[in-house]
């Protein structure tokens, strides 16, 4: 009796020491996710332009694509925060969800609008839009894709109850504003004319989901896209299988894919060099140099309107004086940043948002603002700061190196910058309150979008708190104008105001970069950072 008690106890404890940790770990390993908090956001908002556009494309999808046989792709991505399509906000989110879904309109890598689930679209007045939908498309659960699904998707997207920021962006669309005319025709009744509405529905959160869809993609990943998400492990990996019933004939070519999430880019670069992954969905520009040429890795580059902004609060000292802002802009050696830090994968910008990738930028004729330390000092003195100024610049991890470069360039002119580098999430908790901030703005599909988001009076993301009535009037004019030539002229006027007033220093437009190993073909970098694996193959 005594012996048995002792023996049992001893056994339990002996086994216990090593097993303790294991037991503690094993209990909850099941990898499921319940409901997700209801929240989200959309790309951006602007009032639209008036006009009519028509897309074309084949009417019906061929039943099933045959092919496949393109191998299995492993790609590296940043870890997603959420994979609920309506709530996505980071590149990791987008790069996980997009293989599973389609949009009404596809934003091509050449920035053209291409038919996707909608084959045609038209509007008489820019306010009522009719989209003709593709027939013969099925969701991954086998149900047919119809107009009801589009209605449900957009109703959800703009529903204030969903607390999605898409609601704040699609200001011109209300819940109930989307109606099914018939099974394959859908009508949007906007509250005001938006001439380039089809560009809006390429917003990455506007992925078309089934009308009865609930939950999130971790448990219920159902779209019409080329791949089915078969397994998702938060912050670790995702697995995809080819959708055998995909509606585009012969696509996708890959049989399966795996996304592996890396917490830092250094590890991604190591992984692609060693062949652990075949593709990196995003390569930060300042790390281009770390990918040695000829190592079996190719860097893919796509010019875009993505850019960094150094935003200065114009309602706060010392930035309330335009001369101080101009002085700041004059300290930046733009050529050096583009050539050395970006390794040439960028173009010099001129403190406005009208990037050369937009057709409308061709009419632009502005003097280039080059580095001029003397002039900067002179402006500072005129503004009452003969001894220079001490300021704090807040930014986040990924672009810290650019902040450091800029700070060092500004010092000789007497602008002494102290930098705080925060984690990205923390930064965006208070970014619109910061006196001097620096962040990246992703490419937008319409030229009105960026100015409207970042520089319109009272706009949510107007970080400089800048307000210029002439500028706002021009935004309205731009939205209401159809003629390309006239649009370009208005856009040029807007650029000139930004250039003169400098609410933000915009020193470069960066290319979107990704990297592939030489065994991968059929993949391109996309200006808006979208991923499209339909034609990708791996040897």
């Amino acid at each position, binding site marked *: 009796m005594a012996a048995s008690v002792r023996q049992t106890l001893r056994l339990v404890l002996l086994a216990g*020491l090593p097993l303790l940790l294991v037991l503690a770990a094993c209990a909850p*390993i099941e990898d499921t996710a*319940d409901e997700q908090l209801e929240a989200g956001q959309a790309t951006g908002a602007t009032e639209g332009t008036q006009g009519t556009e028509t897309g074309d494309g084949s009417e019906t999808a061929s039943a099933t694509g045959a092919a496949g046989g393109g191998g299995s792709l492993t790609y590296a991505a940043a870890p997603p*925060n959420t994979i609920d399509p309506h709530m996505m906000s980071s590149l990791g989110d987008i790069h996980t969800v997009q293989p599973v879904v389609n949009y009404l309109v596809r934003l091509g890598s050449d920035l053209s609008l291409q038919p996707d689930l909608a084959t045609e679209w038209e509007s008489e007045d820019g306010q009522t839009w009719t989209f003709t939908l593709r027939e013969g498309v099925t969701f991954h659960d086998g149900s047919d894709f119809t107009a009801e699904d589009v209605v449900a998707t957009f109703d959800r997207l703009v529903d204030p109850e969903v607390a999605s920021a898409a609601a704040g962006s699609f200001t011109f669309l209300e819940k109930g504003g989307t109606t099914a005319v018939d099974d394959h025709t859908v009508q949007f009744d906007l509250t005001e004319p938006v001439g380039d509405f089809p560009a809006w529905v390429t917003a990455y959160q506007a992925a078309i989901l089934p009308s009865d869809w609930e939950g999130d993609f971790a448990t219920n990943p159902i779209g019409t896209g080329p791949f089915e998400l078969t397994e998702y492990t*938060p*912050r670790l990996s995702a697995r995809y299988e080819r959708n055998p019933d995909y509606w585009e004939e012969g696509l996708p070519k890959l049989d399966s894919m795996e996304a592996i999430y890396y917490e830092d880019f250094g590890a991604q670069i*190591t992984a692609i060099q060693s062949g652990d992954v075949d593709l990196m969905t995003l390569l930060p520009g300042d790390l281009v140099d770390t990918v040695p040429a000829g190592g079996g890795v190719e860097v893919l580059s796509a010019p875009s309107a993505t850019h960094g902004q150094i935003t200065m609060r114009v309602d706060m000292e010392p930035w309330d004086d335009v001369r101080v802002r101009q002085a700041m802009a004059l300290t930046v050696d733009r050529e050096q940043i583009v050539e050395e830090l970006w390794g040439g994968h960028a173009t010099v910008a001129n403190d406005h948002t009208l990037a050369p990738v937009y057709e409308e930028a061709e009419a632009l004729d502005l003097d280039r603002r080059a580095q001029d330390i003397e002039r900067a000092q002179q402006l500072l003195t005129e503004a009452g700061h003969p001894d220079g100024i001490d300021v704090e610049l807040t930014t986040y991890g990924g672009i810290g190196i650019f902040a450091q470069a800029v700070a060092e360039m500004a010092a000789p002119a007497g602008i002494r910058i102290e930098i705080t580098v925060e984690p990205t*999430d923390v930064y965006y908790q208070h*970014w619109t309150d910061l006196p001097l901030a620096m962040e990246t703005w992703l490419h937008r599909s319409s030229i009105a979008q960026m100015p409207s988001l970042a520089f319109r009076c009272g706009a949510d993301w107007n970080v400089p708190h800048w307000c210029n009535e002439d500028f706002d009037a021009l935004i309205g004019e731009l939205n209401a104008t159809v003629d390309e030539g006239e649009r370009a002229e208005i856009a040029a006027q807007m650029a000139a105001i930004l250039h003169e007033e400098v609410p933000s220093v915009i020193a470069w437009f960066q290319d979107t970069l990704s990297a592939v190993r030489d065994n991968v073909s059929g993949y391109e970098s996309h200006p808006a950072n979208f991923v499209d694996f339909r034609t990708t193959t791996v040897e």
Partner: protein
Amino acid sequence: MARSADSGLLRYFLRRLAVMLGLLVLVSVLIFAMVEILPGDVGNLILGQYATAENVDLVRQQLGLDRPLAVRYLDWMGGFLTGDWGDSWRLGTPLAPLIGRRLYNSVVLAGVAFAFVIPVSITAGIVSALRRDRLTDRVINGISVVSITIPEFVSSMFLILFFSLLLPWFPSSAMVPEDAGPLTTLRYLALPVIAISPVLIGYIARTVRASMITELGADYTRTAYLKGLDPRTVITKHVLRNALLPAITVIANQIAWLVGGLVVIEAVFNYPGIGQLLLQAALVQDVPMLEAIVLILAAILMLSNLAADLLYTMLNPRVRAQATGGAT
């Protein structure tokens, strides 16, 4: 007599367990209070950069953050005990499966590390005791003094330089491919394990050395020698048995070190363990995740210390008599 000793042991065990549970409750209050007092805003964390003020308020309501602190604490603890650990603010997914999986990964890494450390350190300790003050002893002692002080991330960098960049033997990242076999897994884990080991080896080896030296000089050892017993038998049968006892406590205490080291090592080698998760949760102030991870780590540390104490008590007759005597 034997019976009373055993029931005494059981009572001792139960008492220790009760004290530990009490401490855990205290720790949970501390963790909760600490995290709640410190600044940080949940609304923006969940909604991301584009949140509007109304949406942030809505989320705070949904999460019940407008309720009093005590109510929230009880709610949290209640959920924790019933397996509902709540959702991560940042990821929006339930914490339990996420943390469970990461913990499992860390346990694998820790297990491999201990499997490497324990034999190496015990051997080193025995060898240095037997060759006391000779060159071998001095070298082993020197290595352990030096290794204890070097931060893990520094030694990791040198390991990566030599064994991953200069000699491409091991991967510089510990992201083990999912379909990897045991050998491949070991290859991926090699550098992190070697990086985390020196501190552990140093401590354990020095403890073993010290207790070996004590035991070698003990009366019974001399008696045994005088009786003409084979020195090898004396050492393996008597000295070792007693000398290894203190090592148990040290090994258990090293679990705390290991956990701290894992935070760094996992960050350096991109290993998806609980340390990396903790670090990210701290960096983005994901409060529910922070609270859950710290509480779980506290529980593990206390349990391992308790287990070591008990093991030590049971294996060591002298201590056992004391412990049970105290209990009755």
